[in-house]
């Protein structure tokens, strides 16, 4: 095939990937800075990465409403992608802010952490922007490989090693599924470009069996990244072992990224098979919510509890996906954003309460926090109520829209199962509060010290959880504008 180079360059349109470029450049610069600046403290790297993230987020936000594509249509900077990019920027920014104090304490304060966080963010952004299966796959790989490194970042800690290795092995396995699915879809339709797949698939009438299997395998691949039951087995171990700031990032960022690609693939490429996947998602949503919540009930370790609860939260989001209407899908976007705030906020508190060597991470260790550190406990309480879906918090509004989407689509029972799950989840969130407020402190919380970056992270997540809970209109409208391009 003859390739017109000049024409090719015209279609590249670097503006579409400007946020990714910024983050990559900043990330690589930080690698160099880390080597050449002889400083024992790495806190400045956190601030530099934060600056990079803010710049990338700002660049992305500037593209709102413009809907430009590049690289011959294999990436796009539309509202949908931008909304998700902002989620990633927030998740990564918050994770970066809580990293320094943690890494300092755990004695693994290597500067490479920050570039890795930025690279994984680039991967997530590409997943949200990708309109071609190859772009999505590359984004996913970039995100995952950086995350494997991050999960095992605390080299001296056996659990962290286990976490990294487990995540890598299972992740590689699931990537195989995804790729195989993509290959089948390509075989069935002859295209990797999502829009073209959609055109071919819609003309097929009776869905092609090859295409169906391909879609199913793709679903499996994403389900692994999102931690949908029964592909969730890796989550608790990986979440528990990874350094807490990394866990915080993993619970919010990659999950949202996988949802972004998942939504785009299925709503744009496979709407013709909606009858097939919608019922499947119904079942997966019920399984995911229920298994996540029931197993979370018995957890003592807070990181494990939050890991299982993050499975349940993916289930809530799936409720909106199964509904597949604007209310539901915009609910996913809103929920992913809220979840980034409330969950990373909760992890920030976990970082503060824990002691060196990842000890002191059990629910029991929160005993008395409410009296010794009332402000911290109050903030944690807000996060927990938001996670449980109790107003006036962003978590409640998000769930309201997700379940409303299900009701609107006629899935009443799905909504009922969802809210009952929500009520059950209240138990284990309340349990943390029971310890914080209703049990006496075992020892003083002398070690809990607040550094400036963590305070900033807490403030941002506090506001991000509270304000959209009281006045959610603006964000909801943004989310609805964002899903317009994929529905």
């Amino acid at each position, binding site marked *: 095939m003859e390739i017109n180079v000049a024409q090719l360059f015209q279609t590249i349109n670097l503006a579409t990937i400007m946020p990714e470029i910024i983050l990559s450049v900043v990330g690589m610069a930080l690698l160099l800075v880390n080597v050449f600046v002889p400083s024992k403290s790495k806190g400045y790297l956190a601030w530099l990465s934060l600056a990079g993230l803010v710049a990338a987020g700002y660049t992305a936000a500037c593209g709102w409403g413009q809907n430009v594509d590049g690289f011959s249509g294999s990436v796009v900077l539309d509202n949908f992608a931008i909304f998700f990019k902002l989620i990633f920027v927030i998740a990564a920014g918050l994770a970066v802010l809580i990293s320094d104090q943690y890494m300092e304490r755990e004695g693994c304060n290597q500067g490479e952490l920050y570039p890795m966080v930025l690279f994984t963010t680039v991967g997530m952004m590409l997943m949200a922007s990708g309109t071609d299966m190859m772009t999505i796959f590359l984004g996913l790989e970039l995100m995952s490989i950086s995350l494997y490194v991050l999960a095992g970042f605390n080299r001296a800690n056996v659990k962290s090693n286990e976490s990294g290795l487990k995540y890598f092995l299972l992740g590689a396995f699931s990537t195989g599924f995804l790729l195989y699915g993509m290959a089948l879809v390509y075989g069935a339709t002859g295209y990797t470009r999502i829009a073209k797949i959609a055109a071919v698939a819609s003309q097929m009438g009776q869905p092609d069996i090859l295409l169906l299997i391909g879609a199913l395998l793709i679903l499996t691949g994403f389900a692994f990244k999102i931690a949908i039951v029964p592909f969730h087995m890796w989550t608790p171990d990986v979440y528990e072992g990874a350094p807490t700031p990394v866990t915080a990032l993993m619970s919010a960022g990659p999950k949202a990224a996988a949802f972004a690609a998942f939504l785009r693939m299925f709503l744009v490429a496979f709407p013709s098979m909606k009858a097939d996947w919608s019922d499947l998602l119904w079942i997966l949503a019920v399984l995911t919510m229920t298994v996540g919540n029931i197993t979370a009930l018995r957890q003592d370790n807070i990181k494990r509890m939050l890991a299982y609860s993050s499975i349940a939260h993916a289930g809530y989001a799936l409720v909106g996906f199964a509904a597949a209407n*604007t*209310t539901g899908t*915009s609910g996913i976007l809103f929920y992913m954003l809220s979840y980034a705030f409330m969950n990373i906020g909760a992890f920030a508190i976990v970082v503060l309460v824990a002691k060196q060597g990842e000890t002191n991470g059990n629910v029991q260790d929160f005993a008395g926090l*409410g*009296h010794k550190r*009332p402000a911290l406990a109050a903030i944690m309480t807000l996060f927990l*109520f938001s996670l449980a879906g*109790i*107003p*006036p918090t962003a978590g*409640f509004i998000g769930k*309201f*829209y997700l*379940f*409303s989407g299900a*009701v*609107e689509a*006629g899935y*009443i029972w799905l*909504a*009922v199962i969802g*809210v*009952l799950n*929500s*009520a059950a989840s*209240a*138990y284990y969130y*309340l349990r943390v*509060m*029971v310890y914080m*407020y*209703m049990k006496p402190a075992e020892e003083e919380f002398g070690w809990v010290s607040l550094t400036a970056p963590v305070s900033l992270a807490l403030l941002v997540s506090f506001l991000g959880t509270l304000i959209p809970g009281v*006045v*959610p*209109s603006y964000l*909801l*409208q943004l989310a*609805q504008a964002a899903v317009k391009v994929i529905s």
Partner: protein
Amino acid sequence: MSNILSVMTFLPILGVLLLLFIPKESKGTLRGVAMLTTIATFAVSLPILTGFQTNADFQFVENVPWIAAGPFAMRYNIGIDGISLWLVMLTTFIMPIAVLSTWTAVEEKVKEYMICLLLLETGMLGAFISLDLFLFYIFWEVMLIPMYFMIGIWGGKNRIYAALKFFIYTMVGSMLMLVALIYLYFLGTKAGITDFSLLHFFDLKIDPATQTWLFLAFAFAFAIKVPMFPLHTWLPDAHTEAPTAGSVILAAILLKMGTYGYVRFAMPLFPEATHRFTPLIATLAVIGIIYAALVAMVQEDVKKLVAYSSVAHLGFVMLGVFSLNEQGVTGGMLQMLNHGISTGALFLIVGFIYERRHTRLITDFGGLSKQMPIFATIFMIVTLSSIGLPGTNGFVGEFLILIGSFESSLRWYAVIASSGVIFAAVYMLWMFQRVMFGELDNPKNQVLADLNLREIAIMVPLVVLIFVMGVYPNPFIEKMTPSVMKVIAKARIEPVATAKVVVPVVAQPEVAPVQPAAEQPVTAH
């Protein structure tokens, strides 16, 4: 002042903000600020009472857009009518008393306690005045949080269990209500309704099958809150463990949320379903009356006894409300206030002796009347009011309820429920006798001090109200009558009314109500 309702509702939040800046060591200041806030809230609520026009309209309405996104439009839509007016007044009236009652009872974490009380006040007031279903739901849920902490932090030794039970029970109920609420909204949008405003949904015609489900979801949430037999099991635990102020508020106001929910939402929104479920609810109410009375009789703990008496009293309220005639509903509404005052007072009384003796077991007392004459007098008055002796408020409410239900289709339920009045006399008087009369033989009881000035000040307004409402209940009834009539008109389905007229001729009133053909029912998909 056009936004007086908002001022009243959010004034306690202002108090919370003030409290945040007061150091936790200065307990006196903390108590003072909380006290002043609740008194100010009461003061703000007085013009609402005096300015209230006796008609069925919602008054002091504020209605501004709040959330607008996608299929939903929520509005900050508040207002009161004769139904909510007295419950709002009850709330603002009870709160200063509740704060005053904690003066010496709560010594630890005073700041947090006062913050909880004030947040609770905002939540309760907000729920009573919301005219937007979504807004109501928000306040309904927000109320849970401070109460949960009050029971869990300042409660008795089994407090954590009680707090969790309280929270989870209520949350399961309200979550199902949330789904019903969403479903109702989508039904409404098909009929051209564009927001969550309650008034719009009153006019919505829903087909009976759908009503059944929606009613069940709402009724379940409210039944837990009331609480109705057999969903009442959280209540004795919560009451026994809660600190005095918590019990007072729980009994006086929070339980009314359930019965208020029926009157305001479940019944007028789903008239056919109300009609269909009236026998079931009346049965549960009567079982609750008798069962709770029997259980109360054998309680050894005074507080538990009062808690079970609450279940019985609210059974009466439910019976009255569901008889759907003027006497019944008015009696039910009045009994809500009466129960708030007399049971609130009873919990305060239990609190007084508990503070002195740190026990609530009936067997630990006896002959207290000799040692504490003022206390004995007040206790007697409150006990009689709780039993429903003529001349006290309890009589008026129960009498109206029994008349109302006797005149309605619930005649035989009323007959059985009347025996509950006798049981009430048995367990209350028996308890009173064992605590107050007899030999003062326990040396610990021989040194008990009578009520001090603060405690008398707490009880006097309640005692005054007991007599005022018992002797001259008219002003209370007058203001609520138009709204009560409006609820009855909405909740009663026309075929029944016509069937009643035809009864002597056709003599077959038992047919299921038929939806008027002229109205297009909105069907579920």
